Every structure is written in C-alpha cells, then in structure tokens.
C-alpha cells in the first residue's frame, strides 16, 4: 500500500497557538506528576514504608493502593477539565 503523496502547502497555513499549547503542557505535566506520585509512588514504590502508618484501621500504603489513588485520579481529571475551560476562554479557542 502506498501512502498519500504530500500535498502542496496551502497558501494560508495556520499560525500555531503557541502560548495556549505551552500552558496546556504545563497543566498536563503538573497533573500527571501527581498521578505518578500516588499510583507508582505511594501505592507501589513506597508502600512498605507507608504501611507503618494507619488510616482508620488500614495500613496507609494498602489504602492508597486499593482506594486512595482512585479518589486522586478523579480529582485530577475534574481539575484538568476546569482549568482547560479557563484556558480555552483566555486564549479564545473555545467553541
């Protein structure tokens, strides 16, 4: 199967929204760091160390692995959607 041949560049190429994209990447970067911290950090890498502490009657690391991380995931996605609403308005790219 051959590929579609590259078309001639159109006379009016779009100007990239550089600032919008950079801020988007920063938001994603911060939120995914938290995502990695709770899931790979608290729930796996440091679970034994965290298990010496307790939340209610459960070891803390075990709680993070089986419940806590999922609550954090949920908050992260909500924060992302809200922040992006703000960025879309600020950079005038919303629909």
């Amino acid at each position, binding site marked *: *199967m*051959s*590929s*579609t041949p*590259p*078309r001639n*560049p*159109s006379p*009016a*190429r*779009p*100007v*990239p*929204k550089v600032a*919008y*994209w950079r801020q*988007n990447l920063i938001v*994603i970067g911060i*939120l*995914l760091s938290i*995502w990695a911290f709770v*899931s*790979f950090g608290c*729930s*796996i*890498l440091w*679970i*034994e160390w965290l*298990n010496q502490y307790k*939340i*209610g*009657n*459960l*070891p803390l*690391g*075990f*709680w993070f*692995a*089986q*419940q806590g*991380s*999922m*609550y954090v*995931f*949920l908050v*992260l*996605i*909500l924060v*992302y*959607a809200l922040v*992006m*609403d703000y960025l*879309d308005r600020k950079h005038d*790219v*919303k*629909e």
Partner: protein
Amino acid sequence: MQFLEYSLPLLGLAFTSTQAWTFLFVIITFMIYLYIGWASRAQESGEFYVAGQGVPAIANGAATAADWMSAASFISMAGLISALGSDGSFYLLGWTGGYVLLAMLLAPYLRKFGQYTVPDFVAKRYYSETARIVAAICAVFISITYVAGQMRGVGIVFARFLEVETWQGVVIGMFIVGVFAVLGGMKGITWTQVVQFFVLIAAFLIPTVALSYMLTDNPIPQVGFATGDIAEKVNKIQEDLGFAAYTQPFTNYDKTNVFLITLALMTGTAGLPHVIVRFYTVANVRAARYSAFWALLFIALLYTSAPVLAMFARYSILETLNGAHIGEMVHDKDTDVDYYPIYQVNDAGKEEVVQWVSNWQKTGLITIDDKNKDGILSLKNVDGNFAEVKIDKDILVLATPEIAKLSPWVIAIVATGGLAAALSTAAGLLLVISSSMAHDLYVHFVEPQATEPRRLLIARIMIIGAIFVAGYFGIYPPGFIGQVVAFAFGLAAASFFPIIFLGIFDKRMNREGAISGMVVGVLFTAVYIIGCRSDKILGTAAPLMTPWLTGSKWIPDGLQPEAAGAVGLILNFTVALVVSRLTSPPPDDVQDLVESVRIPRGSHAPEAHFDETDAEADNP
C-alpha cells in the same frame, strides 16, 4: 414452602425462588434493552458509528463505564483481588489510572480530529494506508479476544442461574446483542449501555452495602473498609493458617513486576479501541474532557467497592469454612455430581448445612477433599492454596449474596448485573470489529464509491458476522481465553498508545518512526507473551521461554508476560523517536493537522477537519 420452591413447574424446569427472580429480572431488563435498540435505529453511517456526535457528556460517561466494565470487572476482579490481597491492587490502579492518561493525552484531541475510528486517525496522521491496515488488524484482534470472553461469561451466568446449557446461554446473548447492535449501531448501543450501567452498578452495590453493614455497622463500603476491624481480623486468620497477611504487599508478585504490570494496564486501558471510540460520540472537545470525568466517577463507584467486597468475602469464607464439619457424601441426581455438605453451628446452637457450598459444588466450581479424613475442613496453607477446599476465583461476586445469606432477589439482581456488564462490553467490542472491517478495510480498499445505504448495509453485515464469530468462541472457547487478556492489553499498550500520543504531542513524528516503533513494540510483546505462554496458546508440552531475568536482584520472579506490554511500550517510544529524527519530517499538511487537533475550536466542522478550511477556522 419448600415444596413450592422446588417443584414449581414452569417451562418444564424445577424452579427455585432464586431462579424465578433471576428469570423475572432478566426478562424485564432485556425487554428494556431491546426496546431502546429498536427506538434508536440508526439511519446513516454517522449515527451508526459515532451516534451522530450528539451524546451528552454525562450519558457518554455512563455508557463508557458500562462499555469498560466487562464480565471481568464485575465477576472476576473482586475474586482476583481477594486471592492476591495487596498485590491485586494493580488491577485497581491500572484499570482506573489509564483514564487519567486518556482524559489528558488522547480523548480531547481525538474528538477534535473527528471521523469514525482509531485507524482513521492513524492513517491521516501518518499519511499511510499501511498504517491503517495494521491499526485495523490490531483493533480486530484485541476486540475478538475480549468479546469471546464476554460471551463465555454470559453463558456461565445463564448456566448457573437458569440451569440451561452454557451454549444455550451464549445463543440467547448473541440474539440480544445482535438486535440492538445491528439496528441501532453506536446510537442504540450508547443508550442501552446507559441503562446497563445502572443495572450493573446497583447489582454490585446492593450486596456490598449489605455486607459492609453486617460486618462493620457502616453501610458505606468505602468508609467501612477503613473504619472497620475486618483487615486486622482477616490478617490474623491468614497468618494462623500459614498465609501472608492480607494487607502485606509483594507476596505474589515482586515489586518490579507490580510496577510494570500497572504501567501496562494503564497504557493498555488508554489505548483500547472500544474505549477510545466512545469519545468520538460527544458533541465537542469540552464534552470529551467532562465525559472522561463522568466515566471515571461511574467506574470508581464499582472499583472502590470491589476491594471492600474482596476483603469482606475473604473474611467470610475463612471464618465460615475453616474448621467446619464435613458431612457424608451426597449424590445430586440432576447434575450427576457428588458433593459434601458442610455444616456450621448457627445462632441457635444447632448445626445447619451451608447451602452455597453445596450449590457451587454442583457446578464444579468448588471442590472439597477431606485429605486427612478427620471430617473437619482445613484451610491451612499448602503451597499457596487451601489444604482441603478449592474455590474458583470467578464465583466470588456471584456467591457473595449467598454467603451473606441475602434474599433470593438480591442474588437474582447480581446475576442480572453480571449479564448487563457482559452484554454492554460485548456490544461495544462488536461495533469496533464491525467498523474496522466495514469502514477501515472493506469500504476503504474494496468499494470506496459505496453509497450511504450500501455502507450501512455493509456495516450491519459485518456486525452479524462478528456476532457469529464471538458466539462460536463463546461456545467452543480456545483454551487460552484467560491468558490472552494480558495479550490484548499488552498489544494495546505497545501499539495504539504510543502512536496516538506521539501523533498529538510530537509534531516531528513521521510515518517511518511510527510504523517502525509500532512493529518493534508489537513484535516484542507478542513474541514474549506467546513464548512464555506457548503451553496454553500453541499447545506445546512446556512453555518455549522462561521469563527473562528470573532470579536477578531487581526482578526475582522474572519479567511476567502480563508486564511485557510495558517493555513493548518503552521500546515503541524509543524506536519511534530515534527513527523519526533520522528521516524526513512529515509533510506540511500533516503538521497543520497536528496544530488543528491541539485546539478545541472547530470540532463541529462537518467534513474533512484536517484540511485548509478548518485551519482557517482556527484563526478567524
């Protein structure tokens, strides 16, 4: 009463009250599904493939949740966690954490791109019809693997609760999925899945709430989990029996494997085509972001309850069965199996039969063997298993209401929920198979000039074909169904996730990089999994490969096949980045397409979102 329950003649079967309730609920819910399938008949391809792109975010969230939570999530997951203890967390983390990746890295941009399928995006972004074929074949393979397991699940639930043959259960399931998928396409499936979500979540939460209230006096399972004292009790019983404590990590898998399996499940979740296409059905980019939130919220209702159910069920089983009195062997005439009644001392101080153990022995999913002939059931640890009883992991959720002695109608609701979970996922997968075959392969390469009614007809023929394939594998399951789930996730992680991610975030990524990365990632993952599991998949006498690095310092158990997808993912990224930098950059119009998907505005443009007209719309 006893007489009534056991000799009610209906359809020539002896019905217990559990069966009567199950029958009633199944009939009611199936009537609803069929009605919705009929009421939302698709009239054109756009409705058939992406539900006309008008599904509200919250409804799409519920549909995604039902699509995602399969028979495996509903029936098997709590049982697996119960058996694995703390290490079972990789299912919870992997199967929910992937939604964070999906929400931030894939869904909004794919929605902006529009179109019908994942291979559509791959073909446009990498200006290559070869890439379309590879992506379509991966999508079909992943989906068929999955759907066969779902149809099997449907058959088993029917077999246990309605006492029909497994194959009859599969055929009934094929008929139901067929009607709403063939008629309604994505539009019908979406609204059916919304209803199925509520059925399955109610079915899961009712017994979990009841169990939580019984064991911790707190009806909210997530709270009872932490405030109750079940963890301490179950840890103590486990240690007395010679097992590791339930909350002790890394007793079944070492740390490196847990890490890699979690990574593979997360990226696999984000790369599974039947989940991704759900984000094509919403109105715009903003709705795609919120629908990822709703999806995870609805999924988390089940996924935060499952570990609670797992721990409580583990406790109930250990508490009920350890040291129980084994009765004389009984022969069951209907099923022609021998079983051992188990006796327990009840509150009144009299011995009574533990009914659920008898019921499940009749299906062969619990077996009891009094090895030391002392008439007492011992659950001591022998090579990681209970000494005198074998309990199939898949029965845990279905048996929990019986274990907790809940009413027959609760047991019936759980069975109905299991069916809803299996059917909703099966429908979503069938649509991916049909769209890959009809849209990406047939219409694109065989009949590009097909008219609209003809395209719809082809899509419907493909979906009927897919239903028969799924039904065949459900009735005659190849021995490796259970093993290939790891395969499907590994392939999704090693193929779709990296190429879609790089397609959006790396403007310099070109055709050469993407195709070579995908080939290396998929080949590694496939060869490793097939090699390590060849006894199950190819039927060789022994596995052709032993897991790599066994006995090393960092990964003492060796790289498990379930974790291979994570290594394939890393290989894919590395190869793609290196090759793309050594070859020429993608053409200008593809770079413009990347700019365009990064910006929300213009997702409603009717056709060809990727050409110059749209680029102008981005910069009014």
